[in-house]
């Protein structure tokens, strides 16, 4: 409710804009992207716009599951980048895209308020009763990853809240309302002034793989392929690495 209605409106607006090109040379590339990729993709979009005058790259940003649901409902888009393989499978199973490429991986870290006031040193601290702890809800990818990680580490966490996505969990850390939250490494790296990250030695037990695909009904398949090529190029890899992503 909170996200889908505005996004649906945005989708409609993009469709109208896409049809409104009058001189025949300007075109719009619509990229549906998982929220954690926002910053990297914005830079790639600018790069592609420089390479191809007249091209306008637009992003629809949301959780991967929301985006997948919108694509299945017929939202018009050229490229889909998903934060986990399950949501990419939702789209490919419907025949809306084929041949997705895994291009990056992300692991979890413990985000704590700046200065780490509660003295969190590892996963075991998430079981401390007196700490306020946020995890992602098991329904969303980062929550599923957190579940796997905690089971592997044998930690019985005592969360106070299950957040709807990693960014919401991070916000609670930034506001100082929780002492620790399990979020993606890249989420914490994106806010170096507001949160500190406590590295998790067992993090490899839960790796999320990011995949990208050109949609079968892409209005501009040519530009869509160019965007994916740029993402997979040395430039793209460097940007992803700078943001804290791993190579798959």
């Amino acid at each position, binding site marked *: *409710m909170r996200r889908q209605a505005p996004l649906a409106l945005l989708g409609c607006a993009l469709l109208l804009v896409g049809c409104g090109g009058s001189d025949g040379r300007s075109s719009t590339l619509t990229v549906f992207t998982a929220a954690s990729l926002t910053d990297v993709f914005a830079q790639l979009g600018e790069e592609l716009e420089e390479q191809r005058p007249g091209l306008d790259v637009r992003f629809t940003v949301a959780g991967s599951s929301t985006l997948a649901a919108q694509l299945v409902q017929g939202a018009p888009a050229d490229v889909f980048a998903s934060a986990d393989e399950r949501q990419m499978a939702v789209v490919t199973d419907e025949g809306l895209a084929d041949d997705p490429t895994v291009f990056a991986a992300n692991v979890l870290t413990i985000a704590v308020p700046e200065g780490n006031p509660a003295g969190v040193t590892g996963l075991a601290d998430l079981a401390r009763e007196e700490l306020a702890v*946020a995890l992602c809800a098991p329904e969303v990818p980062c929550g599923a990853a957190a579940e796997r990680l905690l089971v592997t580490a044998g930690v019985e966490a005592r969360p106070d809240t299950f957040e709807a996505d990693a960014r*919401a969990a991070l*916000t609670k850390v930034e506001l100082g309302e929780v002492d620790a939250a399990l979020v993606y490494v890249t989420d914490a790296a994106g806010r170096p002034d507001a949160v500190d990250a406590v590295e998790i030695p067992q993090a490899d037990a839960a790796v999320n793989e990011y995949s990208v695909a050109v949609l079968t009904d892409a209005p501009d398949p040519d530009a869509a392929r160019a965007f994916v090529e740029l993402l997979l190029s040395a430039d793209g890899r460097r940007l992803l690495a700078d943001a804290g992503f791993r190579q798959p």
Partner: protein
Amino acid sequence: MSRRDGERTGAGVPLPLMVPAALAVAFLVLPLAGLLVRAPWSGLGAQLTAPGVGSALRLSLVSATAATAVSLVLGVPLAWVLARSRIRGRAVLRALVTVPLVLPPVVGGVALFLVLGRQGVVGSWLDETFGVTIPFTTTAVVIAQTFVAMPFLVVSVEGALRAADARFEDVAATLGADRWTTFRRVTLPMVAPGVAAGAVLCWARALGEFGATITFAGNFPGTTQTMPVAVYLALQREPEAAVALSLVLLAVSLATLLLLRDRWLGRAAA
């Protein structure tokens, strides 16, 4: 007499009103019909007995009722101040207290953190003095719902007060009643239907509250996971479950509102 007849047969509605009204009904009712069509009727039993559904429903009903009670205790006096008093800056005050109507509820949730959170102005004092923290508790759910829903009650009661004839109050005053007695014995009974209608609106808004709740109170089964929050999370994994949960919320709120209307509100709020 003729008006009654018109009501019964449906005649007498001019076409320029009938057509848009019919469109409005279709616009509001068709999405509900869509929910009913898509509902996983065969698996409904399993969806509704899934762990957490009962506690989410109970929490929703309890917290929305508590939020309505708080709104009545605080909101009716506020409506009176806005409608009857002559304090300066009333127009500004009215605009301020209706801000939650237009504020995106998620922002409302963050604003509540800034005041009542562990680091908040009031919240940090509560924490240090009494060792009490509000976020992620059922109290936080009620506070978030009250913040979003009370303006509906205030606006509705203020409207009723403005429409009520103030001369009855003047008469009560000339007969020796002080203002408090006048409010209790004359004003309140006169605007009771408006108060009831406002309370129903407020309750319904609190029941559906999502953004401020998930932000300020978080999401924990049994403590802070209300039905709308459960629906949103179910939507991420299993849309059928979300539809089933929505149907429950819909049925319960429709039943409650119909029952209230027949029992207590009479025709005034119909």
